[in-house]
């Protein structure tokens, strides 16, 4: 059954390309259907999210094991929600049918990779699916350059992404090779055994693999590509990347390794803690002085990924729960913020925050939803972000990492600072004459934003129930 998660998006890609050229507009609808199935699959009990190895003919043919669990469900849900949002944004921001068709195609390809990442249980397959996702994303970032006269910036962004991704690939392949030497197998269980035996080669392998994932997840100092790629990418691509691609290929894989392989062992835990803390601080401070709205959001993403790494370095069970929650919250909120940014870019034609101001009265829905998402990420109760941050701090506190807990708390002040500055510069203050005619954006852009903001509020307010479901789901 789990194979369907790989086969359906793949079949959809094939189907899309069999469509006659005139019917390409329908491609988006096929993609919508697939993503809706994806989100629904997250809730489908019959996938048996118990972490047990699942029956998989594909796996038998290609030699990999799949074992979906509660975390997989979380990723599928994120992918579904964010993917639908990105497609909706694409409808309103990509002008040509051709672009939208490419976009739908690439989203589906990336989805194959993401679904694979969600389920596989060995490092090599993980690497393969990460690469599948990455290849689709390279092209997505450069989507603008397909149109004449645009896109040098997009090409540059994509180029940096590829360069650093290549390094990641090298590191990860090297890691797989070392692990084969050390443990004779690349499964997470085998790696865990080798680590427990304190085999230096295995530790080098895991360290290398982690570094590869750090690049994919853009943790400091492996983050150079992210801001340029996010900023240069067209609006729906930013939504898709920030919402799910970076998180699935970098952070989710990290989560998987931390929970199944590292198991809280030294020095894996310490590496995660230090990299996480550095990432939080550097990302937050970088975000503080940005003028471009998307770039600020990009650095904010960097900083928030640090929180997840930090959580994985904390108390094992609580840390993974907190990381999973923060993963979900951040995916939802950041996808929404990039949707807001897309709305602003569409109405104003610029993302330079110095030229904005006073848009709140003109675009009240955008301003309101943006406030919800920013406050949630900054960790204000009763929004969802508050709970995940609280759990992260608790996870650190429980194992006596008081210093890192304090960093986590203090950095949320910086988070609040840059988000308040964003909110103030964009939505409050005096409005420039130029924006006198600006109106609230099209429903195609604000409806998904409202929907995601409602998710944030609902999860925050109903957190105790959500926690019960998550704990019951085996996270």
């Amino acid at each position, binding site marked *: 059954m789990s194979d369907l998660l790989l086969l359906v998006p793949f079949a959809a890609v094939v189907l899309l390309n069999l469509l006659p050229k005139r019917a390409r507009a329908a491609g988006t609808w096929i993609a919508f259907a697939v993503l809706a199935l994806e989100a629904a699959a997250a809730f489908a009990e019959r996938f048996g999210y118990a972490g047990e190895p699942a029956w998989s003919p594909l796996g038998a043919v290609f030699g990999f094991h799949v074992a979906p669990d509660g975390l997989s469900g979380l990723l599928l849900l994120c992918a579904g929600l964010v993917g639908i949002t990105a497609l909706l944004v694409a409808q309103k921001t990509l002008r040509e049918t051709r672009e939208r068709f490419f976009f739908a195609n690439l989203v589906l390809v990336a989805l194959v990779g993401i679904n694979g990442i969600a389920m596989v249980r060995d490092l090599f397959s993980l690497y393969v699916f990460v690469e599948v996702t990455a290849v689709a994303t390279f092209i997505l970032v450069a989507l603008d350059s397909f149109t004449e006269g645009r896109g040098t910036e997009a090409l540059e962004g994509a180029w940096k992404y590829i360069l*650093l991704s290549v390094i990641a690939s090298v590191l990860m392949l090297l890691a797989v090779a070392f692990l084969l030497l050390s443990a004779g197998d690349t499964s997470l269980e085998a790696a865990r055994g080798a680590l427990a035996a304190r085999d230096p080669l295995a530790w080098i392998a895991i*360290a290398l693999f982690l570094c590869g994932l750090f690049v994919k997840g853009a943790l400091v100092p*492996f983050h*150079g590509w992210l*801001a340029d790629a996010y900023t240069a990418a067209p609006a729906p691509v930013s939504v898709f990347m920030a919402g799910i691609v970076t998180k699935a290929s970098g952070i989710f894989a990290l989560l998987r390794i931390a929970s199944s392989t590292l198991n809280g062992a030294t020095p894996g835990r310490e590496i995660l803690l230090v990299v996480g803390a550095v990432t939080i601080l550097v990302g937050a401070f970088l975000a503080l*002085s940005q003028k471009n709205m998307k770039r600020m959001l990009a650095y904010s993403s960097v900083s928030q990924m640090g929180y997840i790494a930090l959580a994985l370095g904390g108390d094992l069970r609580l840390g993974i729960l907190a990381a999973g929650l923060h993963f979900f919250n951040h995916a939802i909120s950041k996808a929404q913020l990039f949707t807001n940014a897309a709305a602003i870019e569409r109405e104003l034609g610029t993302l330079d925050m110095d030229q904005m101001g006073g848009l709140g009265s003109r675009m009240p829905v955008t301003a309101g939803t943006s406030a919800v998402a920013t406050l949630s990420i900054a960790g204000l109760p009763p929004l969802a972000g508050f709970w995940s941050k609280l759990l992260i701090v608790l996870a650190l506190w429980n194992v006596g990492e008081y210093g890192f807990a304090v960093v986590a708390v203090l950095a949320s002040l910086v988070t609040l600072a840059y988000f308040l500055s964003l909110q103030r510069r964009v939505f409050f203050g005096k409005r420039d004459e130029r924006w006198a005619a600006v109106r609230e954006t099209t429903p195609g852009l604000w409806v998904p934003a409202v929907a995601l903001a409602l998710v944030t509020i609902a999860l925050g307010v109903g957190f105790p129930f959500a926690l019960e479901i998550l704990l019951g789901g085996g996270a």
Partner: protein
Amino acid sequence: MTQTALLLAIAVPAVAALLTLLVPNRRAPWAPAILAMLVCGFELAVAIYVFPTDFAFAWPWMGFGVDFALRLSRLSAFVFLGIAALSFLVTLYSTVAMAKAPSSRRFHAWVLLTVAFSAGAVLADNLVLFLVFWEGLLVTLFAMIAAGKSRPFATAIKAFVIVGLTDLALMFGVMLTGHLAGTLSMSAIRLPLDGLGAVAFLLLLVGAMGKAGAMPFHSWIPDAAVDAPTPFMALLPGGLEKLLGIYFLARVSLDLFMLSPESWVSPVMMWIGAATILLAVLMALVQKDYKKLLAYHAISQVGYMILGIGTALPVGIVGGLFHMVNNAIYKSSLFLSAGAVEREAGTTDLRELGGLGKSMPITMACFLVAAASISGVPPFNGFFSKELVYDGALERGWIFYAIALGGSFFTAASFLKLGHAAFFGRPADEKRLVKETVREAPWPMLVPMIALAGLCIFFGVWNAVPLEGLIQPAVGAAMEGAHHGTFAGFPTNMLLVGLTGGVLLLAVLNHAFGVRRTGKGLGAVDHIYHAPGLASVYKLQATGALDPYRWLNGTAGVAARILFAIDRAIDWVYQTFASGLALVTSGFLRRLHNGSAPRYILWALAGGLTVVLIALAVVGGGS
């Protein structure tokens, strides 16, 4: 049914207050006043309906022993009745008095909320619930003063600070009492007055006295007299606040704590009462404004109640409570007459007033009855309650009696002066305030005044009705020690009556002397004003130097400057240092990110190398 009635008594005015705010101002400017009057009429009906019953119920509310508990005891039933009756009369009055005021809508909304909170506070049987309603009254107090005309905001803040501070004391008192008693249910608390118990008692006492406006928590009242709307003065400082404050004082002294004459708290209360009587009445004596003079009496009269209850003797307690009722009646009536004068003559400045008796005979008649009551002239109600308080005071020490009697002298003197200056004699500008231009007040203003004046006579002549029907049952337990079973009827101690008569006579003689000396009614007490010793005190008072609020402000000013310096330092750390550091860091990091791909690759590689080396070092070192 009683339960529903009690809940409605709190809910209906509160909902009506919100409704009032929804009424469009332009379309129906009269609607809020009418609505307020009708709701207060309903309140009165409820109060009469529930009066004969004893009733208690409790709903679990906030947990931790904080229940939504209401209780209708004899004491609360009768104070509730007083509140309802008084607010009905005042709202009837204000339908006309506030008709032209631009703030009428807000004012009536606040009146209704005040009624709701007052009913809640009187009926509450849980200390925390009581506190909730009590604090609500602080808000409405502030808002109602702020609805006044000239420069009400400073006064509103003053009232808020003073009453707020006493409420704070009350809050601590409630906490301490709850802690000592182990319960928050008021009817279950019965604490001895020793050690921490005495501290809790004093804290609660401060809260009660702050509400009642006793010294030294009084100084906002004379200011409010000038700035706030007149119906407000009649309703709150004149009536409701006395009822509530003294109700709570009685509740604390009789129910929550076992106040006895042997306790050291009793003389403390008596001294506060005595000081309040004398100091406030001396201030009242020399006022040159109708409302301000009344305001000081509103303070002074509280002294009698506190003195009476402070004696801890049945006769004093009954006298104090009876005085509370009487004071609410005549003081409201007096404030209402001031409002009528203000409306018709356009001023309350006694230097301009005069000879109004000819054009406003009914107002004058009501004033005379109420003034006689407050001065303690038989057979009006004030005489009987004061005699009871004297009786108790004398039993505890002649000095208390002497001060209380002295207070009566000055009270009588100041009302002789006030009546003379306002209703007799001649106005300063004889063309303006003549019979042709000044008319009698309209009937919605007269009816409450007449009703209250009528009550002054009724409660005096038939004092058995309030004493045996209302107050003695309310005192209940304390009455057991009373020797003759009832305090109704004419005072038995003829010596005291004689002394009272003598003092009143002395006041009249003093008035005649003063009028002859200066030639006008307003100057009747000038010789006291210029008396050696007193003159300097009065001068100090005129500068505001004797206002405790001033002292508080002075101290607060110094403290504020010190704290401000500390605050600036802390602010610098956050505002300048921390944010500067953040911006410098941020700028530095941003300059590092110059978009160069090789640089980013280098970082990633260096990072990777570091991570691997560290892992290796740790594992290698450990194995």
